[in-house]
């Protein structure tokens, strides 16, 4: 099988590897670069657990070849927090209980991060549409929507919205 030199920048750090033609991007990230925050849930582009940002675009890395990502700037969940702590979206997920088992969460975070970069104040319908390619089996999505709203409000400098109501 042909081997190829691939260079990718992941979370700001450049990596070069010689890979098989068929190596999936998600396996490059998980197995070669040991960034296991990106998960695999279906192999068929349906569940979105493997979502990473490729040049800023949410991309399901289980159906992209590593060679297709040559030269790309890739963002994974490990790159969201910085020295100042978790990102506004990560904080929103924690405050609004937007995760349970945590397996879909990295993909949700990457999709949500891209949404907020493109649309600083998304409506509930826009959030639901944006994450419709990311399946969650635990949360019922309500609190994921709230988590994105929390982040949007925080990034706009507003007070965080109140906790979810239960009567």
């Amino acid at each position, binding site marked *: 099988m042909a081997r190829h030199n691939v260079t990718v920048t992941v979370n700001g750090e450049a990596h070069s590897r010689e890979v098989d033609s068929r190596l999936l991007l998600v396996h490059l990230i998980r197995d070669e670069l040991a960034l296991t925050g990106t*998960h695999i849930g279906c192999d*068929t582009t349906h569940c979105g*657990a493997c979502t990473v940002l490729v040049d800023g675009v949410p991309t399901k890395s289980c159906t992209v070849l590593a060679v297709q990502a040559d030269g790309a700037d890739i963002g994974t969940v490990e790159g969201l927090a910085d020295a100042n702590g978790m990102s506004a979206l990560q904080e929103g997920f924690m405050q609004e209980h937007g995760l349970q088992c945590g397996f879909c969460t990295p993909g949700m975070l990457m999709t949500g991060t891209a949404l907020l970069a493109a649309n600083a104040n998304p409506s509930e319908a826009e959030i639901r549409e944006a994450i419709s390619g990311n399946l969650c089996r635990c949360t*019922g999505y309500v609190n994921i929507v709230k988590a994105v709203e929390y982040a949007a409000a925080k990034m706009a400098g507003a007070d965080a919205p109140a906790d979810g109501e*239960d009567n």
Partner: protein
Amino acid sequence: MAPRTSAKICGMGHSMKRKEDPRFLQGKGNYIDDFTLPGMLWLDIVRSPIAYGKIVNIDTSKALEIDGVLAVLTGKDLEAYNLHWMPTLMSDTQMVLPTDTVMYQSQEVAGVIATSRYAAADGVAAVEVEYEPMKPVIDPFQALEDDAPVLRTDKEGQEDNRIWHWEAGDKEATDKIFDEADVVVREKMHVPRIHVASIETCGCLADFNPVEGHLTVYMTTQAPHAIRTVLALVAGHVGLSEEKIRVVSPDIGGGFGGKVPVYPGYVIAIAASVVLGKPVKWIEDRMENLQADSFARDYHMDAEVAADSSGRIRALRIKTLADHGYSDAQAAPSKFPAGLFSICTGSYDMENAYAEVDAVYTNKPPGGVAYRCSFRVTEAVHCLERIVDTLAHKVGKDPATLREENFIGKEAFPYQSPLGWEYDSGDYQAAMDKAKEMIGYDDLRREQAEKRARGELMGIGVCSFTEVLGAGPSKDFDILGIKMFDSAEVRVHPTGKAIARFGTKSQGQGHETTYAQIIAEELGLPAAHVQVEEGDTDTAPYGLGTYASRSTPTAGAAGAMAARKIRDKAAKIAAHLLEVSEDDLDWEPGTFSVKGAPDKSVSIQECAFAAYTNLPEGLEPGMEATNYYDPPNLTFPFGTYICVVDIDRGTGEVSVRRFVAVDDCGNIINPMIVQGQIHGGLTQGLGPALYEEIPYDEDGNNLAGSFMDYLVPTAVETPAWETGHTVTPSPHHPLGAKGVGESATVGAPPAIANAVVDALAHLGVTHMEIPIRPDRVWEVLREKGVAG
């Protein structure tokens, strides 16, 4: 209820943010596929393309020529060690790998072990298997016909495809009521085969150390201790002894009952590690997960209700056929082959009931797992809540009113049900009142009448369920003979911080947070200072695991009891430090003080330090306690759900406009987490109600074997759930809690189905089978002449 502890202590009733979240949010979880070990090999599995047939030959030669492929294990190889069959948790048997016959599509046929994932997959593609196909038995009703071939010829004395017959109740007395009743309604309904479809599939990493004879298995299991014992029992003859087996269940990406059984893949990986002396990892892909792992449900129910002319329910009669596939591989308590189906009389007081279930073999994957359900409670509730609506329509009553008129009154608890349960507590009317008020029930009925007059299809569905959870008391409940207690071990360190270990295993439920809150509630230590651990059989106390909403009722109770033992010891130490008698002490969470002199006090932390440094004479040093909790009864959470749907006459599409869920799970440990459990459960009820099913064609082909066809709800179809609660504590649970993880999965499908039927009731429709797909609705609309 206001919390008893301060926000700093964060005991019960506080919406504490989850302790597990920071690692999950930063990509630092430890799921099974994140583990690697030096020299690790990969297992991938050859699976059967046919549902039933003889294996003529397995040719592994081409696979073994592939670079990186080290071995191919077949049933013949395992037979040499007598490991080709294994017991199921229901004392049936199941093949690990076949020696001569395959019994369902995607059955494991051989295991390829290689140095990489990719090489193992290449090996799988290169194994050549020659089959002699046979005509499969797919329809469970046909499986019972006289001319049906006997599928389980491996079982001595098996002369047909019946597995077992189960019944509960007084048949004669029930029949008599039916004979004389004013009104009898009947519906046949199928709760079809579905799949848990947790976003993480199953997998393991088996690491056998041939020098020590020690096996460590990291695996996606909801019941690590039970699995260790099962491994010791089935592999003891090849030298695996229980003290040399360590099962570690790491972070789990959703379980929902699907990670209770032992799948062949785990056993093949373990066998491969033993044979090769190297760590072997197996991670199934989504199609393997949907096509071969244990399914859930698949109950065909024929239900009847007898009532008087006003709609007062007198009796219930249900005859059920349970399709278990080729093996009874459910994980129910051993004395309950039909699970806790006898909760089928639900929230209604009736004179008598009779239920029977016949289980059959077919050529489908084995199973019957309790998917987010306390063993067949989902099937029972769906059956009852659907047919109660049929009765309401028949006698011309509003379905909420008919329910109210039949509720077991709150004064009737503890209530003896006709099928033998003692319900611990309940106030069904309170939950109904709250749900009706939250959704604006009367206004919705007026809106529906107006819309109906205009030809628009809108429906309102009600479900008032009662669950039975927390298995269970050891006199009745065991799995493979192991009693269904659970356990906690709490140790307070000298500086007043603690570690608490439990026999259960969280899969997203937030045990690291809620268990810490339980210890905080009882000891007054801040929950932030309580480290919770589960899942490692070398360190955690023995327990039966997490499923059937049993963690809070069993292990949660054990945590409270262990903490109380520690508090009792702390009181002795406090009396010593304060130089008073124990009887002269008051306790506020976290502090002992002298009665009448509240400024003379010591903290629980000071008592902990003294337990290691300054003990009263004769008291054993240290501060730890263990409790194995055997619950005196089960718990019976309940709730009322009301759902509003709109139906598109052009497409038959059902959209859930609003859904109000009022739950009563007794006292609440963490309101935020409880609400999250309800949201998730509702979504796992929406799926089977409208979208999810694993159907088979007549040749036994799985028709929903990937997420292309198995339709897990996305954020777009899922409504913005509205939740509320009432609180009726369990009188026998130490914390008054009942468990909540599954209520919504149980209650949502009939609420949604009832709403759809309600929208169509004026057209003469009394029942719709789930999943209520657009095509099913559109067919009805076309038949009734109202398709748009």
